[in-house]
C-alpha cells in the first residue's frame, strides 16, 4: 500500500488579467478577463512508506505547487490525491497531523520568540506528550547542534541556524511524511552537509517518508535512490537514480596527459573527443569496454604522465533529458 498516491493531478491557476494604467488596480479587481497558468499537468506517482524521493525540476516546473497540494493548502483543479489514507484538502487538520513541512524560502518559526519557545508552541499545537517532546528535542539539539542558539530570538538567527530550527520544528511531532521544499537553498557547504546528514538519519532511523525538492543535485546524489523528474508540470522520468545514470551515463571519459606531445592519439574501442597534443579525451561505452584495459592499451602506446577517468554527472544527464525528453535508451546487458 503506497503512503502517498496521486493520479492525473492537475493545478491550473486562474488570475484576473492585470490592467495597467490609472485605476488599474480597481479595473483589475472588476475585470472578468483571466489568464490561466497550468502549473501541474497530470502528475501520477506513488511512494511507499519509508522512501526518500527527490522531486526535481527547473524553476517553475511545478514542484512547490505539487507539494502544496500534498499538504492540503492548495486544492487541485482535477485528479486524485491520497496521503496516509486521507485526501489532504478535504481533511486539512487531519492531514496536518501526519505531515511535517520545511520550506527553504519561508520559516514556520515564530519570529519574535526565542527558538525554543517556537518548539514549545508546536508541542501544544500537536499535543505532543512531554516524554516524546523531550526525547525528540534532545536528539535534535544534538544532531543539529542547536544548543548555542536555542534561546536566541529567531529574528536574530543566521540562515543556517534558522533552517536547522525549521527542520527540528517540522519533525517534533514524529510525522509519518515530511515534505522538504528547497531546504538547502542559500546555505553554505557546511550547513548543507549538516542538513543532509539530518535528513538521511531521520529517513533511516525513523522510517519517515520524505519528498525532497531541490535544485542542488548534490542533495539528490547524497540522499535519494529514486527521483521523479518534472518539467512544465509533467513527469518526464520516475525511477532509480542508478538506472538513470546507467541508461544515460553509459559513457565514461578517459583523460590522458602525455609526457611528450602526441599528434594523433588513437585507442581501439574509444572515440577521440578532444586533443591538444599534451592531453586527449576519449569517450567510451562502459558497457562495451573496460577502463582498465583501455588504460593499459594507452600506456603501452604512449608515455603518460597522468590518467583520469570522468563519470558523467547527474546534472549533465538531467540537462539532456530536459532538452531531448526521456526516451528509454536501450540498456546493454553487461
Amino acid at each position, binding site marked *: 500500500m503506497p503512503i502517498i498516491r496521486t493520479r492525473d493531478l492537475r493545478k491550473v*491557476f*486562474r*488570475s484576473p488579467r492585470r490592467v495597467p494604467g490609472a485605476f488599474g*488596480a480597481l479595473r483589475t*479587481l472588476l475585470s472578468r478577463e483571466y489568464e490561466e497558468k497550468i502549473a501541474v499537468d497530470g502528475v501520477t506517482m506513488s511512494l511507499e512508506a519509508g522512501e526518500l524521493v527527490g522531486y526535481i525540476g527547473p524553476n517553475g516546473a511545478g514542484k512547490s*505547487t505539487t507539494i*502544496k497540494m500534498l*499538504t*492540503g*493548502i*492548495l*486544492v487541485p483543479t482535477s485528479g486524485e490525491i491520497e496521503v496516509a489514507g486521507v485526501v489532504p*484538502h*478535504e481533511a*486539512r*487538520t*487531519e492531514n*496536518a*497531523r501526519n*505531515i511535517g*513541512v520545511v*520550506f527553504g524560502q*519561508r520559516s*514556520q518559526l*515564530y519570529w*519574535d*520568540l526565542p527558538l525554543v*519557545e517556537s518548539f*514549545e*508552541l508546536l508541542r*501544544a*499545537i*500537536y*499535543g505532543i506528550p512531554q516524554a516524546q517532546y523531550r526525547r525528540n528535542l534532545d536528539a535534535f539539539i544534538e544532531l543539529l547542534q542547536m544548543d548555542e542558539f536555542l534561546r536566541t530570538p529567531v529574528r536574530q538567527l543566521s540562515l543556517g541556524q534558522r533552517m536547522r530550527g525549521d527542520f527540528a520544528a517540522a519533525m517534533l511531532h514524529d510525522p509519518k511524511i515530511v515534505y522538504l521544499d528547497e531546504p538547502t537553498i542559500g546555505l553554505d557547504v557546511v550547513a548543507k552537509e549538516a542538513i543532509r546528514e539530518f535528513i538521511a538519519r531521520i529517513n533511516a532511523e525513523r522510517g519517515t517518508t520524505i519528498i525532497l525538492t531541490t535544485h542542488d543535485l548534490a542533495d539528490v546524489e547524497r540522499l535519494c535512490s529514486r527521483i521523479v523528474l518534472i518539467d512544465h508540470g509533467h513527469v518526464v522520468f520516475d525511477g532509480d537514480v542508478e538506472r538513470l545514470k546507467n541508461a544515460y551515463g553509459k559513457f565514461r571519459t578517459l583523460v590522458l596527459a602525455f609526457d611528450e606531445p602526441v599528434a594523433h592519439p588513437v585507442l581501439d574501442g574509444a572515440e577521440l573527443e578532444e586533443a591538444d597534443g599534451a592531453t586527449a579525451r576519449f569517450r567510451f561505452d562502459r558497457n562495451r569496454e573496460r577502463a582498465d584495459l583501455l588504460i593499459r592499451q594507452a600506456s603501452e602506446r604512449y608515455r603518460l604522465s597522468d590518467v583520469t577517468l570522468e563519470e558523467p554527472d547527474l546534472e549533465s544527464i538531467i540537462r539532456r533529458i530536459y532538452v531531448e525528453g526521456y526516451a528509454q535508451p536501450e540498456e546493454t546487458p553487461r
Partner: protein
Amino acid sequence: MHLWPAFLRLDGMDGSMKAGVMRMRFAPYVEFAKKAFAREATYRMEVATEVGSLVLRVYLLRSLWTALYAQNAAPMNLPLHSMITYATVALLMSLILEVDGTRLIREKLREGSIATDLMKPISVPFYFFSDGIGQTGLHAVLVIPSLLFSLLLVHIDVPSPAVLGAFALSFALGYCVNFFINFLMNSIAFWTLETFAIQLIVRWVSDLLSGQIIPLMFFPGVLGRLVVALPFAAVYSTPLLIYVGVIPPSGWASAFAVQIAWLVSFAALSSLVWRAGARRVVIQGG
C-alpha cells in the same frame, strides 16, 4: 472544509472525556495567548510610552470637559464628575480595545505566511483570537499603573458592585464585538492588499461613533438615534453608560441583548467571510 467551528464540535461525548478533549483542544490556544503576552512584554519602551500618553490624555480631557461644562452646566443631565469618570474609564478601556489580534490576517496575507498556519492542525481564526487575548492580557496589566497615575489627576466615581459587574459583562461583550469588527476589516486583505485607506476611515468613524470620545447622547436628533443604532455603540458606549448610570439597571437586559445581537451577527458574518477568504487562498494559492 470546517475551518471555523471545528473546535466547538464536542457532541456525543461523556463529561470526563469532554473535559479531557477541551483541555487538549484548548491547550494550543492557551499557549498562543501566553506567547503573545510574552512577545508584547518585550516591547518595554512602547509599554511605558503608552501609559505616559494615556495619563496625558486623561489630563487633557479633564481640562477640556471642565472648560466646556463652565459654558453649559451639565448637558443632558450628565454632571461634570460623571463626564470625567466616563472619559477616564473610556481611556482605560481603550488600552484593551486597541489590541487587534486579527491584524495578523493582513500581515500574513501580505507575507504569504498564512499557508504555514493552514498547515497546522488548528483553527486559524481562533488562533488570532487567542493571540489577541494574550496581548490584551499584557495591556490589562497596564490598566493598573494607568489608573493609579490617573487618580492623581482626576477623581473617578466608583459605582456599586452590581453596576461594576454589569459593566464588566458589557465590556466583555463589547470586546468580542470589537474583535469581529477588526476581523472583518482585516479580512478585506483576502481580496485586496490595499486595505490601508479603508482601515483608516473605519478607525476614524468608529472612534467617533463608538462613544469613546463623546458620549453618544450628545449627538443631536436623528444623528443621535442613528449612532446609537450602529454596532460601534456596542463597543464603548454601552459599557460606559452602564458604568455612569445613564443606562439604569432596568435597561441592562435590553442593552446586553443588543450587544449580543451584534456579536452573533458579526460572528456569523466573520465565519462566512473567513470561509470565502480561506477558499480563495486554497484555490488561488494565496
